[in-house]
């Protein structure tokens, strides 16, 4: 019954339509005129540094914060402000940190959630058993939530989010701080949910995760969306960019090191590699050799690497900060 309802909803061309989201905390603009659309069945990742506005965007979307006057959110074509309670039922939310009642047992949390969403007692029992089995949590059914490990709490969050069979899932850094086994289980479940046709919005810091599971990526910085592309398109756009890595044979004087770092905008990594991005690999390598010869610096272990999504992310954030710095200086 619920699945049929979800299939009907998925027939609408746009699952989530967000227009002109703004959120201010005093003088601080946490979300600054954000707009995006998500199609049914799509997995969209929001990436951004800490304080970029990802979680605030999610809180606006899920009705935790009230919308400012010009903002609009449509879920399957319907404005959520018309009947917030009804549209909140379309969402299943998995937060980064467990927000289940710690003094309730796993089962009591599920029962409470079921009652709030108006699900019958029998259905709650049936759905709970399915979900607890799916997330390997059935043995902890009667354990108090506060006694569970972080990984188990996160599994409970997934169960709570899926209990009322929502067509849209919102995952706020769902694998953050989890052990590799729990994180893998979560990723497998996310991909399974995608196959079931769920629309998923996920925020993450994990570039590999975003690259593997997202159809589209929104990069946020300082409350704004600065990129909205598929992971492959993003990397394609920066294909002309490579990363050049090298080591230095022997010790560098402070003067030599300063000259080197300034010349190519180089970053020194912990593993002693010097790294910089290049738009013209051959030209930059020849410049680097000429520079090192003039200053008597020995270059060794030189490598050229294809740009990863992580490097695209860092590049975009840096570029955005550079534009802001220029604006401030003007």
């Amino acid at each position: 019954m619920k699945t049929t309802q979800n299939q009907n909803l998925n027939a609408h061309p746009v699952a989530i339509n967000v227009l002109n989201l703004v959120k201010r905390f005093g003088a601080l603009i946490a979300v600054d005129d954000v707009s995006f659309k998500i199609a049914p069945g799509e997995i969209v990742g929001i990436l951004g540094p800490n304080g970029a506005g990802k979680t605030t965007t999610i809180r606006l979307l899920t009705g935790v914060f009230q919308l400012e006057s010009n903002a609009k959110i449509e879920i399957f074509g319907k404005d959520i402000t018309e009947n917030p309670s009804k549209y909140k039922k379309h969402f299943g939310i998995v937060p980064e940190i467990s927000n289940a009642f710690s003094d309730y047992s796993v089962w009591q949390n599920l029962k409470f959630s079921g009652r709030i969403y108006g699900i019958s007692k029998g259905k709650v029992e049936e759905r709970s058993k399915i979900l607890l089995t799916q997330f390997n949590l059935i043995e902890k059914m009667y354990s108090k939530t506060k006694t569970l490990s972080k990984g188990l709490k996160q599994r409970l969050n997934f169960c709570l989010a899926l209990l009322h069979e929502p067509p849209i899932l919102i995952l706020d850094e769902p694998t953050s701080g989890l052990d590799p086994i729990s994180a893998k289980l979560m990723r497998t479940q996310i991909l399974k949910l995608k196959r079931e046709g769920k629309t998923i919005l996920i925020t993450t810091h994990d570039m590999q995760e975003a690259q593997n599971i997202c159809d589209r990526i929104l990069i946020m910085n300082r409350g704004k969306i600065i990129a909205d592309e598929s992971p492959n398109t993003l990397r394609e756009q920066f294909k002309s960019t490579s990363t050049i890595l090298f080591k230095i044979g022997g010790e560098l004087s402070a003067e030599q090191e300063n000259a080197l770092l300034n010349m190519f905008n180089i970053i020194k990594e912990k593993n002693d590699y010097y790294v910089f991005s290049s738009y013209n690999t051959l030209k930059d390598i020849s410049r680097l050799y000429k520079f090192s010869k003039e200053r008597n610096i020995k270059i060794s272990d030189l490598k050229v690497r294809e740009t990863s999504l992580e490097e695209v992310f860092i590049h975009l954030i840096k570029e955005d900060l550079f534009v802001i710095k220029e604006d401030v200086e003007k």
Partner: protein
Amino acid sequence: MIKDSLNRIWILCMKNVFLYIKKGPVLIFGLMFPFFMTLSWVIGRDISLEQVFIGIVAMTSFFTATAISPVVLPVETREKSLERILSSPISLNEILLGILFASTLYSLIITSIITVIFMVMFSIAFNSLIVIILMFLGIGLMSFLGSLLGLLIAANPTDMTSDVMIIINLVKFPLLFISGIFIPLQNSSPSMIFISFVSPITFLTDLLRFCVDRSNFFTYSFDILMLTLWIIVLFIVSYALHKRTMPKRLSEAGKSKKKMIMMKKNM
């Protein structure tokens, strides 16, 4: 629609009673405080059993009513469960009413038990059934009023229970001392009588005096009117404050000025 809303309020109310009845601050400030306050007031003094009964009922009603309502929001802010509730099909009004009803229910049950026990123990006799109904009406109004007062103080957008408990105790004790529990209004100066209007406990105590031994200062209808007015004012102020402070309570930046400054610096 209204039925669904009432159902959600009831679910929240039951959750609050179940989760918070055993919390330390609720037990300490709801049960132990009125007990020890009564002991320290009664021991070594020549006070009639009727006066002791009035004091016990008024203090129990006020202390139990202000025990649960200030605790819920700071705890749920810290545990993030408030955010979970807000993102489910529940409105802010329903959350606040769920807290109010839980706190009122807790106070009503405890005060009713204490009232009956001491009625029997002190052999307090009432003239008519109407007087008993009036007494329980007063207790009911005070339970709701005290819960509202607790809720009002909890509008402070903190996630630390101790922050709220400090403020509420700073408010509760002066209200208790100026209320006429310890010194009947008949024996007070005109200025003290004027000040006693600031405390809603004055009107419960006076109503109880009417019910127990007719030693009331105001009329019982005036007492009920004043308690009702207090409820209306506290309800409006409390709701308006919560609506204003809720975004701050939920925002990471809103939790402390220090965090806000750090965020600005990082940007």
